[in-house]
């Protein structure tokens, strides 16, 4: 009975638990640091359990619709409203469930890592409060079925991220990074609000399913689409709007950088939700698909070429994050470009979209792992400058193994998970346009080159005298990194079962706008 009630209300609990835990954190933190750590880890474990329960429910029995304030959670359309869902509705379909799984696994490993990795900082109650707010923001953004609710959670996420980026202050440099991130983020969010206002003015609704069922592609809709694509593309770090990404990712504490990757991917989810579920075939699929493909190709190339000459290890990894986002945009853009054409969709469109979506979860895992290893190195030796590091492979063996797993995964080397998703993207994009696939492969080689450089300069070489007594990273950090590395290896060894059970439902859910609309509006 209790478990049934919990599972039935899990969309609400998913956002409520981190919110309540976040606001109670400063008070609990006054008792002692150990109690605060237990509180935060407990809240994150509960949130991850809710996310995994809800994802299990969605993958086994279809889209879950949760209405806030109705007499029963599934009653999205009140009987006296004339067929319109009037309350805030959380629509959790397979794509949302996948993003929730990403948020749960990453959030859990980051909080375990943070317990040890951030213990030298002061003001940790605020840190964990903002971190739990970030989790609430991510979970809300990917679960909601209401556009204005999406905007609110987007703002929750960006305000708490900005506070956390500036957390270390670092003689003012971290605050500079946070200002750049936050000004761009605010302008972007307000532009999204303009687009939401345009939708409301035209269709008198804020629910994604209702607007999707009433969508005609008028001039105002085109304007709103462009505003949404540009703003959400800027939030996820697509070139040429990517300038805030290296600054923010390098200056934030390393655990927060791993969470910022998930935040960028939540914005990428928002982009796909707008393009596929709001518009679907009403938009000019070839044009918008090619726009996303061009953004993706630019991101891949500029990201990796700017990464190679970098001297700061986290800035280098941030440029690689931009580059890998390009892969996701390329894969899903190819799927979008053939959206109206069922035969091409079956031939390579679905595979391209599955490749892009699989890359989202793979990237969150191995990029989070890489940033956590960079954080472990920074924790022990106090510098991020590649010119001053060397020979750490003698002292930090576990960190080196995790770094190697992450570096091979990002370069797309079998048998890790990066190879599986990149293979899907290469083969399907090759059938769409061979040049794009060749660019993607060259970028992959340059990624490998760049990580060989990082690996050599950090871990290889003789034991340097100034790092003679550097110890291995503390155990909670290793456990956090170990969870992500285990997912990287497991997803790489069993990609077939992951794609069949997780990714293919997500791709089908994105393309199938009719199923989304009928799940919310009850077949109307």
């Amino acid at each position: 009975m209790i478990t049934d009630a919990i599972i039935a209300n899990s969309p609400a609990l998913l956002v409520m638990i981190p919110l309540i835990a976040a606001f109670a954190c400063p008070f609990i933190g006054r008792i002692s640091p150990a109690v605060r750590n237990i509180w935060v880890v407990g809240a994150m474990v509960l949130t991850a359990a809710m996310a995994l329960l809800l994802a299990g429910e969605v993958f086994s029995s279809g889209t879950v619709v949760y209405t806030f304030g109705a007499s029963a959670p599934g009653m999205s359309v009140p009987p006296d409203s004339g067929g319109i869902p009037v309350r805030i509705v959380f629509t959790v379909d397979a794509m949302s469930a996948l993003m929730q799984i990403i948020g749960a696994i990453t959030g859990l490993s980051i909080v375990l890592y943070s317990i040890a990795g951030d213990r030298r900082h002061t003001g940790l109650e605020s840190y964990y409060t903002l971190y739990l707010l970030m989790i609430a923001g991510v979970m809300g953004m990917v679960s909601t079925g209401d556009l204005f609710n999406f905007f609110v959670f987007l703002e929750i996420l960006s305000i708490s991220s900005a506070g956390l980026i500036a957390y270390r202050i670092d003689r003012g440099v971290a605050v500079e990074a946070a200002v750049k991130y936050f000004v761009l983020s605010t302008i972007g969010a307000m532009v999204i609000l303009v687009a939401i206002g345009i939708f409301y003015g035209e269709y008198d609704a804020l629910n994604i399913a209702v607007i999707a069922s009433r969508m005609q592609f008028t001039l105002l809709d085109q304007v709103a689409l462009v505003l949404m694509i540009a703003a959400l593309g800027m939030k996820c770090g697509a070139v040429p709007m990517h300038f805030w990404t290296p600054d923010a990712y390098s200056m934030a504490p390393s655990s927060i950088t791993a969470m910022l990757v998930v935040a960028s991917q939540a914005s990428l989810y928002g982009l796909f939700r707008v393009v596929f579920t709001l518009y679907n075939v009403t938009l000019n699929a070839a044009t918008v698909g090619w726009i996303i493909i061009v953004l993706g190709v630019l991101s891949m190339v500029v990201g990796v070429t700017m990464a190679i000459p970098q001297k700061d290890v986290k800035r280098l990894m941030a440029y690689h994050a931009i580059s890998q986002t390009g892969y996701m945009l390329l894969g899903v853009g190819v799927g979008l470009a053939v959206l109206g054409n069922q035969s091409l969709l079956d031939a390579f469109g679905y595979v391209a979209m599955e490749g892009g979506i699989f890359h989202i979860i793979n990237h969150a895992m191995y990029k989070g792992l890489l940033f956590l290893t960079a954080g472990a190195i920074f924790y022990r030796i106090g510098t991020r400058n590649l010119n001053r590091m060397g020979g750490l492979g003698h002292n930090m063996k576990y960190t080196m193994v995790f770094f190697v797993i992450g570096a091979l995964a990002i370069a797309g080397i079998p048998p890790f998970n990066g190879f599986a998703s990149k293979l899907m993207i290469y083969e399907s994009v090759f059938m769409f346009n061979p040049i794009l696939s060749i660019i993607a492969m060259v970028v992959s080689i340059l990624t490998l080159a760049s990580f060989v450089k990082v690996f050599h300069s950090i871990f290889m070489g003789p034991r340097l005298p100034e790092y003679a007594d550097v110890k291995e990273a503390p155990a909670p950090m290793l456990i956090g990194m170990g969870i992500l590395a285990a997912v990287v290896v497991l997803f790489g060894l069993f990609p077939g079962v992951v794609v069949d059970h997780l990714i293919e439902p997500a791709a089908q859910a994105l393309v199938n706008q009719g199923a989304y609309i009928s799940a919310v509006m009850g077949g109307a």
Partner: protein
Amino acid sequence: MDLIASLYTGSGYWNPLVWLIAIVVVFVIVYLIWSRGESGYKKGTLQTTPFISGNPEPEKSGVHVPGGNLYWGYTEALKGYYSRLVPLHTGRLNDYLLWYLGVTAIIMVVVVVTA
């Protein structure tokens, strides 16, 4: 059987377990070749120190090539590309915003004109 299913892309399939078996076979062959090597040497004597044409071995911190110098040849060869790309990353907040607004304008023109 579901767990070891292959990943089917549109034009082929990929099964990492087959790859693992292949790698294990390769490692076995490598080990057999390595075990036929010279094993009768004494560690720590002149037999294991690096040979640098008879010159004395430099101190440890002088041997390691730091990270910033590793790809000098690559960045020199692509200097035309990098000398145009890197100055675009000015670091000024106003430029970041102008790029964002400019890209919005370009995409707006493309979408509205072709629809």
